[in-house]
């Protein structure tokens, strides 16, 4: 019964999407200025025309940045979360700083990164990391902190040490949250990479989109963006599948 309702709701979401696209198409046709608002059909045609440079050159570059940013953020985020969980002093000292770091408008200072790290890959990775490590740190940290007190006490009663509690209780308890964090972080990392490229570079979907902008090619601006979100959605979906396989106890925590 519930399953059925979920399925029909899913169908409905496709209908809503289709309706929005239709609205866009009609709106674009009325305005009739492709350099301002290209229609979805025009965007897809452009995407097809540009498939070779987009798929072979710019997409791999952007995905490389995204992946690198994600990996660095994961390592950094998990390390920070674990450190803050193990040491109250570290938590007191770092937590406010980490939260404050999110009030910095990354996009506004990103041009500086280009000055510091050049037009290469690292200035973009830095933008992605700055935007991504925060949700990972906070989510994992919260999960580690909300481990059931009684479960921890039970382990201590059985003679567990701090390391046992961490390995046997905290890691598996926090795993569902880690996956949530990853699913959240993927699109943010993609956005970070694209913004980094937009601000300066010679390759990547963000860079390509900006170049099309200077040529007043509206459909060309949208085409890489559509590709980007499609890939991001695919990546989130894959992460979800892996999670379903590995984590079966989310509801029981």
């Amino acid at each position, binding site marked *: 019964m519930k399953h059925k309702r979920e399925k029909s709701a899913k169908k409905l979401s496709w209908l809503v999407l289709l309706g929005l696209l239709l609205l866009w198409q009609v709106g674009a046709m009325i305005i009739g200025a492709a350099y301002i608002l290209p229609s979805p059909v025009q965007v897809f045609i452009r995407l097809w025309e540009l498939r070779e440079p987009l798929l072979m050159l710019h997409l791999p570059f952007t995905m490389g940045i995204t992946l690198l940013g994600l990996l660095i953020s994961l390592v950094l985020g998990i390390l920070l979360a674990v450190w803050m969980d193990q040491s109250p002093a570290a938590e007191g000292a770092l937590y406010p700083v980490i939260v404050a770091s999110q009030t910095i408008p990354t996009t506004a200072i990103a041009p500086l990164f280009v000055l510091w790290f050049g037009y290469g890959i690292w200035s973009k990775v830095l933008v992605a990391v700055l935007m991504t490590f925060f949700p990972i740190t906070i989510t994992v940290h919260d999960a580690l902190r909300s481990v059931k007190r009684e479960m921890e006490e039970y382990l201590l*009663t059985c003679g567990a040490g701090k390391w046992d509690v961490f390995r046997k209780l905290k890691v598996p308890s926090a795993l569902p949250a880690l996956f949530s964090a990853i699913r959240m972080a993927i699109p943010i990392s993609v956005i970070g990479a694209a913004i980094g490229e937009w601000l300066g570079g010679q390759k990547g979907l963000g860079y390509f989109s900006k170049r099309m902008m200077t040529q007043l090619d509206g459909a060309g601006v949208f085409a890489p963006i559509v590709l980007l979100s499609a890939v991001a959605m695919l990546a989130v979906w894959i992460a979800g599948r892996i999670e379903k396989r590995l984590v079966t106890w989310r509801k029981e925590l």
Partner: protein
Amino acid sequence: MKTALEFKDVTFQYEEDGAPMFQGLSFAVEQGEFISLIGASGCGKSTVFRLINRLETPSEGQILALGEDIRTCPARCGFMPQKDLLMPWRTVGENLQLPLELQRVPREERRRLAEQMLAEVGLPDTAGRYPRELSGGMRQRVSFARTLMTGSELLLLDEPFGALDYLTRVSLQEWLSEQWPKRQATVLFVTHDVEEALFLSTRILVLKGHPVRQMESISVPLPFPRTRKMLDQPEVTALKARLMEGLRQGEVVL
């Protein structure tokens, strides 16, 4: 008979409380006894366990487990909490192995002992299943089995059947009553159910007052193995009425 557990003039107070919970409390449990701790809620039944498990420290007095001060020689008590606290990411077998893992027992040995234990508690072939696939009563039996896996001679059971429905509770009480004589273990059993206490234990300790200064000790005049029918004997029903009355008075004091 040796003493399994002894409280000597123990005084304890939770930091956030205005008054101590225990004041100069002394009691002793002999080896092989099945003791039920009863008392009104909030009287400190579970705190007794927290002290023995060293999750709390008494401000005065001494606690001896199997003849040794628990401060110098931490007692490896088998503790069974009210909620089963089985790890949902582990199979039943892996859950049972947990205490042995912490004692650094080799893997093969662990697995063998876990399967053997499951057979002993009447749950063979469940080693590969996950806790969520079991009923509440079965989970509680697994939890008890895990408690036995510690190999401790002193078992602390904290309202283990409190969260179960009536029928399951009754059948688990009978099950535990069969299991216990086989185990040669000393059991401390916290409950607020007077009938459960009478059915299971050799002796009942009643916590009264605030702070608790002493416990009333009542021997249960029934032989083992026990049946439900025995609870209908006049002396037992009289005892039950007396205990209920005592608990109610305890509540008034609170």
